[in-house]
Each structure stands twice: as structure tokens, then as C-alpha cells.
């Protein structure tokens, strides 16, 4: 039954083929042909992925590894091309191909009026290829290839409107910030090679399983912390999150696909994939949890004050990624992946909805110039509402299940702490608040944008009047809306947790650090009545804060819209601080970028390059000239002086011979 289209390598290769076709020949194709190629390659990839997901689940195997031969061989070390399909990569693969396909469909209509149509789809397919390589690789090195590839695709797509300076700069910022993280990841890989001798998942995890849980800082802690640095870069965590808000310069479908649903979750995937290492390095795990918790809180506060619709969503993404890190940091890997999945659904939907709004009112992104769009774009409104309810954690929408699971794990896991839980709940409140603020500012009240009538005079069909988007854009919205509702139901009764259980390596309880949460919380949650009651209570709290966030937003932006301005003036400095994103960008540019540029200019350029290198070359030339100037005198051009030298030389020879003869 091994038919050709069953080959698992088709999953990443199909988008690559699409990218190459569109990239090399797309200029000659018409738009429908370009779109058809892009849609076919991703759609087919999704179908093949589904076939393999089905096969894996029904085979009952923990993992299917398909090697395709050796890629690098250097001494005892070797790395393969190979596909590693287990329940974790299965979830990621389906999210990437499924959400990716929907966003491709959406882009067909969204990018209709933009230049570089084929270039856009070529990049987008290119991204899919590398993302699938990252997810399906069977060793860390191949994962790193995907890791770098998606970074490249991200750079290309952020800078898609490269004539705009801000877009080009945002692309560079993303790329350079990611370099910092990649540096950490790469060193982690070197440590793995040195101490484990291989990068193949199966072998690494097998070797790691013989390690004891480290009580202090050992090799596993070092590897874990360095991996965290890499994950911080890719997944926009403190202190490397600064690139993600700027990445919103890219087209909106790109923000939805790369900077919300898939690429930025690569760090979470990597941490969860490396769970055998992290589970044995409590310090690294704690660092992951702290980074995640801080980021989720910090980004949420910034999200409250932003007025650019996409930037609110960007900070929301950073914040939600922080949640995933928090979950991973308390060793609740499956909760982390669960939130990753539901987040992919509702955040992609939010971005696509925002894109639909921006498209509908002619490119405006400032929420202060929106309002009242519920009437003119009902489909967008209703789907956005679903996504907002989902991200706010209101039952029975998807976000409720995953967020509640994370908060419960943060509270109850042996690696967890009540502080994580408390910060998580406050963040949940802020999330609910800023999301409903976005919703109310955009869709309720009066339209505050430019008068459509005034523009109608210039454009024969009144292009600037708010209008609903074409069905090709609405269909993905609706599908993602459905997923945002039902996507969380797979987590009821720990079903998702049990599904991912084979991936999570159990850590022996003989050590004083207690068991991995997956095993220990099941009895705690299900078994004792007390645990059950506590869980219900905590669920009640998180639902309560979600509703209070909604209530506050409703009060401030619907009931009494004059209040926010007053609060802003009353809080003065604090508001300014948050509005300006804590001046982190300014701080970085003063503390790191400024000195770096100054050092490059004064030391590297003016001293080393101009003085040392150029100076050495120039001095050599000058010295040669000066010496020649002296020797040149001998070549006078006077024949008789040459003859004189010859005679003198001959005389000297004769004198020497006579002297030698007489001795």
C-alpha cells in the first residue's frame, strides 16, 4: 500500500515545489495561475499530512521515523535527512499546514491589489517548506535548518513592501534580533554534540533518560538555558521580543501565519520537543517559567495602550507566547502545546479579521479612526467576536480550555508556584480587557474614519467607504471561527494530555524533585475530591477575571467613552511609560545599538580599517617608494658611470684574486 503520495517527504517538499515554480516563473503567470499553484501545493501538503496523521494515530506507535540517508558525516558525528513523526510533530504539522492553507486562501483575495503577487506566494510557500522542515526533522541540526529558513522567510515577508523604509528596517531588526537567539541555540547544539555525540532526537532523549535530575547546574541545565536563549529569540520573549511588534510592517496574512500562528511558536515547540532535557534541569525549567510569566504580563500591559490594531495583536501574541512558556516552564508541556494550537486558531483569526477590517476601510490601521464597523462588515465582526471570546478565556470557546489548563498547571504542578498563577490570572484579566477594547473601538459606536462621501468624489466607486471583504477572505475567517469554538473541546477530560503523553518523557521520581506534572496531576485532579474542588474554584476565578475584563472594557469604551482619556491624564507618567512601551526600544538603542554603532565607527572603521589595515598597505607602498628613490640614483643613465662601476668591479675581482694568490 506504499503509494507515491504516501511518502512523508512530500509534506515539506510540495510547498518547496510551489515556491520554486512561483519564484522562478511566477512573473510570466497570471494571478489565478500563481494562486492555484500556491493553493495546490499547500492544500496537497495538508492532505498528505492528514493521511500520515491518521496512519500514525491508528498504528498505535509512539513515533514513526523515516530516514532518507546521511546528510553530514564528520568523524564519529553524523546527521541524517529524516522525518520524525510523533504526536507532537503531528499536532504542529497539522496546525502549520491547516492554518497555513486557510491563510493562503485568504491571501489570494487580500493581496489582489498589491504588487509582487507571485513573489508573495513564493515566499509564503517557501516559509511553509522551512516550517515543516523544522517541525518534522528527526534531528536538531535539520531542525536548525528549518529554524534559520523560517527566519529568512520572515525577514523577506516583513520587508515585503521593501520600498517603505520602516518595513525594510523592521525586517532587519527581526533578522538581527533572531541572530542573538540563534547564537544560544547553536551553542546548545555544540554542547549536545560534545556530550551526547549526536543530534538525533531518539538517541539524544535515550541518553538523556539515563541522566539523573540535576540538583545544581550541570550540563543539561546549560543546554536548557542556551536553548531558552534560542527560543526567546524566535518566540519573542523577554529580552528579545522587540522585533515582533515591528514585524507588523509585513502584510497582514504574514502576521497571521508567521508572526502569530506558526513561526513564533517554534521556540515553544523546541522546548517541548526537548522535554527530556528540560525535565532533568529544574533551573532551566524555572528560567523558562520566569521568562514566560514576565513576558506575558509585560506585553499585556503594553497591549492595553496601543492604538494600532495590529500592534495590539502583536503584543497580545507576545503575551500569549509567554503563557506557553510559562506552561512549558512548569513542565506542563502538553498544556503548552494545547494553548499553542488553540492560539494558532484564534490569533490567526484575529489577525485575518484585522486584515479584513484594514482591507475594508482602505488601509487604515489606527483604531481611533475606526468604529461602528459592525454594520458594514458583519461577518468580520462575528468571527472576530468569537476569536475575542476565545482569547479572553470565556467558556466554551477554545482559549478557555487551554488557558485554564495552563493556569491550573501553574498552580498545581510541582514545578509551579502560586506567583505564576497569580500573574497569569492578572494577565488573563488584561488580555480580556485589551481584546474587548479592540473589539469595541473597532466595531461599535460611530465610524470615526474619513468621511466616505468626500472620497467617493475621487474614486468612482467610493472605495474608501467601509465594505465587507470578498467571500474568499471570509471563508477562512468562518472556518477558523469554527475551530476557535470547538478547538478547545479536544482538551476536555485530559484527552489532549493523554494524546501527547507518549512524547513527554517521564522523569523518575526517585530523585527529590517530584514527578513530571503529567503523571502527578492526573491523580491530583481526578482522584481526590479536594483537588477537584480546587480546580473548579480556580476555573471559576479565571472565568471571573475574563468577564471582569470584558466588563471594564465595556464600561470604558461603550458606556462612558470619555473615561479612558481622563484615566490616561490622571495616571500621567505611568500611562506615558506604557504607551511608549517602557522605552525598551530606546533603551536598547542607547545601551546596545548606539555603543555598537559607535564602536564600529570609531574603533573598527576609523581605527582598525582606516588606520591599521589601510595604513599598513599605504606604508608598505611609501616605504618601497622611498627605498627605490635612494637606489634609483645608481641608475643615472650615464653610460660612463656604468662603465666605471664595471671597471671598479673587475678591478675588485682582480685585487681579490691577487690577494688570495699571495696569501
Amino acid at each position, binding site marked *: 500500500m506504499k503509494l507515491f503520495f504516501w511518502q512523508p517527504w512530500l509534506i515539506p517538499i510540495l510547498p518547496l515545489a510551489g515556491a520554486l515554480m512561483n519564484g522562478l516563473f511566477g512573473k510570466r503567470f497570471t494571478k489565478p495561475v500563481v494562486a492555484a499553484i500556491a493553493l495546490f501545493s499547500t492544500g496537497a501538503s495538508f492532505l498528505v499530512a492528514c493521511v500520515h496523521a491518521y496512519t500514525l494515530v491508528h498504528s498505535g506507535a509512539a513515533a514513526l521515523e523515516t530516514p532518507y540517508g546521511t546528510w553530514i558525516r564528520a568523524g564519529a558525528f553524523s546527521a541524517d535527512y529524516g522525518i520524525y513523526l510523533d504526536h507532537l510533530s503531528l499536532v504542529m504539522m497539522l496546525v502549520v499546514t491547516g492554518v497555513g492553507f486557510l491563510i493562503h486562501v485568504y491571501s489570494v483575495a487580500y493581496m489582489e491589489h498589491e504588487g509582487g503577487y507571485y513573489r508573495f506566494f513564493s515566499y509564503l510557500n517557501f516559509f511553509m517548506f522551512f516550517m515543516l522542515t523544522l517541525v518534522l526533522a528527526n534531528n536538531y541540526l535539520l531542525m536548525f535548518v528549518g529554524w534559520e529558513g523560517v527566519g529568512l522567510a520572515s525577514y523577506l515577508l516583513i520587508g515585503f513592501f521593501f520600498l517603505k523604509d520602516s518595513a525594510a528596517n523592521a525586517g532587519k531588526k527581526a533578522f538581527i534580533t533572531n541572530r542573538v537567539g540563534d547564537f544560544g541555540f547553536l551553542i546548545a547544539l555544540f554542547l549536545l554534540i560534545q556530550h551526547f555525540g549526536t543530534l538525533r532526537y531518539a538517541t539524544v532523549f535515550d541518553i538523556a533518560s539515563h541522566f539523573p535530575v540535576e540538583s545544581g547546574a550541570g550540563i543539561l541545565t546549560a543546554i536548557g538555558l542556551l536553548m531558552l536563549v534560542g527560543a526567546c529569540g524566535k518566540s519573542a520573549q523577554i529580552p528579545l521580543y522587540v522585533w515582533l511588534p515591528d514585524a507588523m510592517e509585513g502584510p497582514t496574512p504574514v502576521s497571521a501565519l508567521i508572526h502569530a500562528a506558526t513561526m513564533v511558536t517554534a521556540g515553544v515547540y523546541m522546548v517541548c520537543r526537548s522535554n527530556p532535557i528540560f525535565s532533568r534541569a529544574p533551573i532551566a525549567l524555572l528560567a523558562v517559567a520566569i521568562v514566560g510569566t514576565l513576558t506575558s504580563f509585560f506585553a499585556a500591559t503594553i497591549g492595553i495602550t496601543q492604538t494600532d490594531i495590529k500592534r495590539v495583536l502583536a503584543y497580545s501574541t507576545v503575551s500569549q507566547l509567554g503563557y506557553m512558556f510559562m506552561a512549558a516552564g512548569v513542565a506542563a508541556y502538553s498544556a503548552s502545546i494545547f494553548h499553542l494550537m488553540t492560539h494558532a486558531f484564534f490569533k490567526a483569526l484575529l489577525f485575518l479579521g484585522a486584515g479584513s477590517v484594514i482591507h475594508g476601510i482602505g488601509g487604515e490601521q489606527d483604531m481611533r479612526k475606526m468604529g461602528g464597523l459592525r454594520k458594514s462588515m458583519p461577518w468580520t465582526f462575528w468571527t472576530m467576536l468569537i476569536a475575542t471570546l476565545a482569547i479572553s478565556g470565556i467558556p466554551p470557546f477554545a482559549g478557555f480550555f487551554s488557558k485554564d489548563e495552563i493556569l491550573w498547571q501553574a498552580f498545581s504542578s510541582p514545578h509551579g508556584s502560586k506567583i505564576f498563577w497569580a500573574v497569569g490570572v492578572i494577565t488573563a484579566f488584561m488580555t480580556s480587557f485589551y481584546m474587548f477594547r479592540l473589539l469595541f473601538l473597532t466595531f461599535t459606536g460611530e465610524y470615526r474614519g474619513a468621511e466616505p462621501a468626500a472620497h467617493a468624489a475621487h474614486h468612482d466607486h467610493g472605495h474608501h467607504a467601509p465594505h465587507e471583504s470578498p467571500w474568499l477572505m471570509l471563508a477562512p475567517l468562518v472556518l477558523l471561527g469554527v475551530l476557535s469554538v470547538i478547538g478547545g473541546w479536544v482538551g476536555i477530560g485530559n484527552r489532549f494530555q493523554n494524546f501527547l503523553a507518549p512524547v513527554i518523557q517521564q522523569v523518575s521520581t526517585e530523585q527529590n524533585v517530584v514527578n513530571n506534572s503529567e503523571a502527578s496531576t492526573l491523580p491530583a485532579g481526578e482522584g481526590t475530591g479536594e483537588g477537584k474542588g480546587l480546580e473548579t474554584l480556580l476555573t471559576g476565578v479565571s472565568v471571573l477575571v475574563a468577564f471582569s475584563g470584558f466588563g471594564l472594557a465595556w464600561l470604558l469604551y461603550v458606556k462612558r467613552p470619555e473615561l479612558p482619556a481622563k484615566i490616561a491624564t490622571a495616571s500621567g507618567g505611568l500611562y506615558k511609560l506604557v504607551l511608549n512601551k517602557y522605552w525598551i526600544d530606546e533603551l536598547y538603542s542607547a545601551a546596545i545599538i548606539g555603543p555598537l554603532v559607535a564602536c564600529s565607527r570609531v574603533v573598527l572603521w576609523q581605527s582598525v580599517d582606516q588606520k591599521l589595515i589601510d595604513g599598513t598597505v599605504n606604508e608598505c607602498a611609501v616605504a618601497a617608494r622611498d627605498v627605490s628613490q635612494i637606489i634609483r640614483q645608481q641608475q643615472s643613465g*650615464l*653610460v*660612463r658611470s656604468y662603465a666605471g662601476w664595471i671597471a671598479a668591479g673587475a678591478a675588485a675581482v682582480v685585487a681579490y684574486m691577487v690577494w688570495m694568490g699571495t696569501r
Partner: protein
Amino acid sequence: MNEIPVSWYLLLSAFLFACGVTGFLIKRNVITIFMSIELMLNGVNLSFIAFATRLGTLDGHIFVFFVMVVAAAEAAVGLAIIISVYRTRETLNVDRVNLLKL
């Protein structure tokens, strides 16, 4: 036999050669320099002949013939160059033939 000792020939040869060198060094006229060169060559020829006669071998004679042939060829080429130089520069002073000087 009352032969003339070889050293006399050699002294004469050295004298002729020294005359040639001196002329070569102090004269500016190309023709004179040229003649000085011929004088040096013939001074050397005399040494060859003297040694060849003394040793009773033919090697020295052959060398002398070679030198004479080369001198003849040199004279032909050299005079041609001198005439050409004189035509273009209207002088035979070697110090003024300095076109290639920096």
C-alpha cells in the same frame, strides 16, 4: 733560444686593456668609446695568443678568431646604431643620449 718571456706580452696586453678602459671611462664621443672597446678586445687577444704559443695548443687561437668575428659583427651593428643616433639626435655625446632616463 732567446725567447721573449710571456710576461712581457702580458704586460703589453694589460697596458692595452688599461688604455681601453681609461678611454672608455673618460671619453664622451661614441666613436672613441667604440674604439676603446676594440682596444680592450685586442688587448685580451694578445694574452690569448701569448698563452697559446707558450702552451703549444690551438685553443687560444680559436678564441682569438671568435673574438675577432664578434668584434667585426659588433662593429657593423654598433656603427649602424651610431649613425642612426647621429641622424636623430645630431650628436655623438653619450651623455646626451638619455631619452629613457627618468
